[in-house]
């Protein structure tokens, strides 16, 4: 202890700082950085968990890019993103924009929209799977049948299965986006609106020229967050198509499900690692795009 007692206050602080950081640094090295490097290394190797890890060069990547299933999956993943992000952002903005102007039972209405966010994706996937069942079981088809519409092939059609799986994901995330939008709307200074009103500017122009431009940081934040969410979709697909994962005919299979199957059903670890690297690059591109768009701020 005498060594410590002889230190200056500044030096003592340095000792404390590294003491506080010691376990966390170990954690980030062993549980974050090492596995990342391991995944990248593995993507250049061949391994089925039993034998030895053997170098395979870029074989895994070559195999992946030549695999028609991968391109199907790649397309699906981006359809989840390109459908899910705009739909959920437009819906949540519409609700937030109007809810912001409502006072009567404001908290109750907000809670109703937020409630689905508190649920687990697995439970909700099974709930919606039931909704989508054919007559006479599924709620939606029963409702359609009661008004004379023939049954709709929600999960059994290669066209409609993907949007059907996306719907509960959009639904559950809406509440979060609404309250973030509302926080963004409240942060816009009232004086801007007052000035616009004095100048006789219409509500439509106020929306396009004041509200939306000032909401840009919020919008970019939500676009990136929901994009990353949809690119990583898994729970819903896995549970809603568990009899034929990613089906029918791979029409709903996202990249994460392909990774899961390659690694933990086929035990083709190198090939799966290559797929995770591709996912990583896609997500990195999305994050960097955010930085690029926000740079002028």
């Amino acid at each position, binding site marked *: 202890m005498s060594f410590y007692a002889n230190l200056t206050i500044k030096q003592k602080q340095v000792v404390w700082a590294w003491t506080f950081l010691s376990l966390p640094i170990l954690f980030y090295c062993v549980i974050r950085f*090492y*596995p990342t490097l391991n995944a990248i290394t593995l993507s250049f190797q061949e391994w089925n968990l039993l034998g030895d890890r053997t170098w395979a060069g870029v074989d895994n990547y070559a195999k992946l890019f030549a695999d028609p299933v991968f391109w199907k999956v790649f397309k699906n993943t981006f359809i989840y993103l390109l459908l899910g992000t705009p739909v959920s952002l437009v819906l949540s903005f519409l609700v937030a924009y109007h809810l912001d102007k409502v006072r009567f039972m404001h908290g109750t209405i907000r809670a109703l929209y937020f409630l*689905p966010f508190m649920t*687990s*994706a*697995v*439970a909700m996937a099974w709930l919606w799977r039931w909704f989508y069942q054919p007559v006479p*079981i599924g709620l939606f088809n029963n409702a359609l049948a009661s008004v004379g519409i023939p049954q709709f092939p929600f999960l059994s059609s290669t066209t409609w299965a993907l949007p059907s799986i996306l719907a509960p994901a959009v639904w559950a995330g809406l509440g979060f986006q609404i309250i973030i939008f509302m926080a963004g709307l409240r942060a816009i200074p009232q004086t801007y609106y007052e000035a616009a009103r004095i100048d006789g500017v219409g509500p439509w122009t106020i929306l396009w020229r004041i509200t939306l431009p000032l909401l840009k940081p919020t919008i970019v934040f939500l676009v990136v967050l929901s994009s990353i969410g949809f690119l990583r979709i*898994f729970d819903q697909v896995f549970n809603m198509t568990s009899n034929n994962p990613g089906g029918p005919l791979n029409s709903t299979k996202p990249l994460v499900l392909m990774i899961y199957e390659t690694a*933990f059903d086929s035990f083709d670890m190198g090939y799966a690692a290559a797929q995770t690297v591709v996912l990583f690059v896609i997500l990195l591109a999305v994050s960097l795009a955010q930085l690029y768009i926000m740079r002028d701020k």
Partner: protein
Amino acid sequence: MANTAEIKVTADALDKAAPKRHARKQDPAAILRWILLMGGGILMVLPIVYMLSTSLKWPHEIYNLSIFPDEPTLDNYAYVLEDGRFYMWFVNSLIIAVITTVSAVLFDALVGYTLCKFEFRGRLIVFVAILSTLMIPTEMLVIPWYLMAKNFGWLDTYWGIMFPGIMTAFGTFLMKQFFESVPNDFLEAARIDGLNEFQIWWRVAMPMVKPALAALAIFIFLGNWTAFIWPLIVTNSPELYTLPVGLTTFSVEQSVQWELIMTGAALATIPTLIVFLVFQRFIIRGVVMAGLKG
């Protein structure tokens, strides 16, 4: 993004009713707006209502569109809870989510505090290194984690499920932001009073960021409670399943008995719904605070 003070302001503003500027006379458009919003809100919770109502129905009644069961029954719950599996999965989920949350909140706060309030060489490097891990998706790490768990015998253990989440870069970043609002004078005064650095963090700084700690705790708890892919990979025996993984297995087993599947789904959902209804304002505030910093 915005600084801490601003976030606090907006989070507080959310609690209050909408500002006066909108308190115009009740014109038909405003009434229509209210009706549409309320209708949309009811539509949002309707799926959950149907889940709860179906869990109270007899098998022959699930084809019925009515929300209220003709003869409500708790038989489904009795059947689902009978073999004790749901109880076991619930306890697993609770233990794992609580331990992970406590660990992550404490470590994230400690690291965030250190990176915010201490001056030492290498501080920026450590901060950037931790922050950069935010870019690494979990899905990329699950394979190496699985191999690690396999080598160390962590498969099918609580620790195996928990270890990837005992610290988070997101929480570290969040807490660093919030510790900026703690004045250095307070820490200096405590130092002069003879408290050591750990005591200063725990007894002076931590109480000043309680709302942020709570917000982070909500976020991390919810994330762990609903986590699926990693617990699915790392567990093999049903005794170790968490609620989402257990629900998947259970539902696949039942295949066409939808009233039982709805009961299982309801059991997985009801706890968080109750927590939400009790702490509603607090949770929404916390999510805004944590969300805006992400």
